[in-house]
């Protein structure tokens, strides 16, 4: 073979014969194509736990993609039922589903996409009905919500749980995906403006009770929802593989489909943000759930000699008092489930005053009441506060674990 200097001419026939490369035959496994991606780790995804909040247009698409890619454990949270107007944007819903709970139907249909994936529905509000102990076990939360208020509460819960979340929002032909990571970069509340606060307060009366406000029907399409969910799930997959990849903490991707134009911006972190609290790390776990435990029992079980009260993490409406006829009615419901029109006294028609508690102590009429009756979720983490207010401890209560359901969960 002729050579020039140190250069050895490339002999294609020789190379083909001698390089010991064995190309794997194309297999037909469910995940073979995506496993060809260099950074992909199907086992990591199989072990992953992801919460999807909202089972509307975005939630449907998020669940579809997470199920297809084989993310092993999914929890979907939604309190709403399916309306006919949902059907143009919700790939998992059918005409016969109208009136059914969104979370239940979405979980069933997403689970049917891939038998390797377990999808557990939680019919309720993410601010209260998915226990903080369950939320802490998630690797990431994906939010396809439609209100500032729901995002506000989710942000607070994720900060307490120490879990990153992706906020996805859509409008006509634009979408945004923002990655929030507790302790790093901006949180959702850091960028609250006066306009955001106004919209937040629209949902509440002067007494802080819920207003029955008509929902704004926002213009959007299945196309925008689908593309937005695609970007969000891609970012979630990057985060699950390596949190240093994908969107940086406190950064927002904005994509305008017409153009198209795409930007990624850093959001300003507010060091004085009221939401920035240390994560709730339980120092004690109780086997009994909220149906079997009262606040008094949680305080006693905490073993703290100075335990004086139990903070629920949200406001409880304890009672209505009527200044007109003097009647008092015990309520015992989360404030977020009590509407301002309930203030009207059924006996005399006067507007009643409302007693709201953030903590339950021996002075409360609900101190010995099972926590489930007050709206406390399974696996919630409660703060036991010392009587002198100087200290306290986080206690996780038991109950159903959505990541290990016993015969499913409704």
């Amino acid at each position, binding site marked *: 073979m002729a050579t020039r200097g140190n250069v050895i001419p490339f002999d294609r026939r020789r190379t083909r014969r001698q390089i010991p490369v064995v190309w794997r035959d194309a297999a037909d496994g469910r995940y073979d194509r995506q496993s060809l991606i260099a950074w992909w780790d199907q086992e990591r995804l199989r072990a992953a736990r992801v919460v999807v909040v909202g089972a509307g247009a*975005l939630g449907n698409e998020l669940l579809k993609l997470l199920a297809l890619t084989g993310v092993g454990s999914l929890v979907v949270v939604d309190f709403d039922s399916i*309306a006919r107007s949902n059907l143009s944007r919700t790939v998992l819903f059918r005409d016969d589903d109208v009136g059914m709970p969104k979370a239940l139907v979405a979980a069933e249909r997403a689970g049917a996409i891939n038998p390797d994936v377990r999808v557990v529905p939680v019919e309720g509000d993410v601010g209260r009905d998915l226990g903080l102990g369950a939320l802490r076990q998630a690797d990431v939360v994906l939010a396809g919500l439609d209100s500032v208020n729901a995002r506000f509460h989710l942000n607070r819960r994720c900060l307490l749980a120490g879990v990153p979340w992706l906020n996805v929002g859509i409008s006509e032909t634009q979408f945004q995906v923002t990655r929030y990571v507790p302790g790093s970069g901006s949180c959702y509340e850091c960028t609250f403006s006066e306009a955001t606060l106004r919209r937040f307060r629209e949902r509440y009366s002067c007494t802080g009770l819920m207003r029955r406000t008509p929902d704004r029907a926002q213009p959007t399409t299945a196309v925008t929802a689908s593309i937005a969910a695609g970007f969000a799930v891609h970012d979630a997959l990057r985060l699950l593989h390596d949190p240093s990849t994908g969107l940086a903490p406190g950064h927002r991707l904005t994509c305008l489909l017409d153009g198209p134009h795409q930007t990624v911006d850093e959001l300003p972190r507010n060091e004085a943000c009221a939401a920035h609290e240390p994560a709730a790390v339980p120092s004690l776990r109780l086997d009994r759930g909220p149906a079997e435990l009262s606040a008094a029992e949680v305080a006693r079980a905490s073993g703290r000699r100075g335990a004086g009260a139990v903070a629920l993490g949200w406001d409880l409406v304890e009672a209505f008092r009527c200044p007109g006829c003097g009647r008092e009615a015990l309520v015992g419901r989360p404030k977020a489930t009590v509407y301002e029109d309930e203030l009207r006294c059924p006996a005399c028609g006067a507007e009643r005053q409302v007693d709201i508690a953030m903590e339950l102590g021996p002075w409360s009429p609900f101190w010995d009441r099972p926590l489930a009756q007050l709206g406390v979720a399974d696996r919630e983490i409660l703060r036991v506060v010392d009587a002198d207010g100087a200290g306290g401890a986080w206690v996780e209560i038991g109950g159903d674990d959505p990541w290990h359901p016993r015969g499913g969960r409704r």
Partner: protein
Amino acid sequence: MSTGTMALQVRTANRDRKAEIEVDDTVQVGELLDAARSNWALSPDYEYIVRCERLQRQLRPTDSLAAAGVVAGDVIEIQQISDAGSAPRR
């Protein structure tokens, strides 16, 4: 540090509207946003933020343009916040 008046380009993120402006750098980001919303009659149904193209950063409404790091010649975008997601309830 204030350097006085500067020239900026302000536009909507969807590029429907744009304007060359001269503005004092002590003007707050929120004031600039209010002026743009008013001048272009942007929809009151949406919330908007202000971003700087060069800095690739959302600007705080309470910061002055100078404090936000905006300099002469910058392109400032008024960006709509997308916050739909779940289908509207009945």
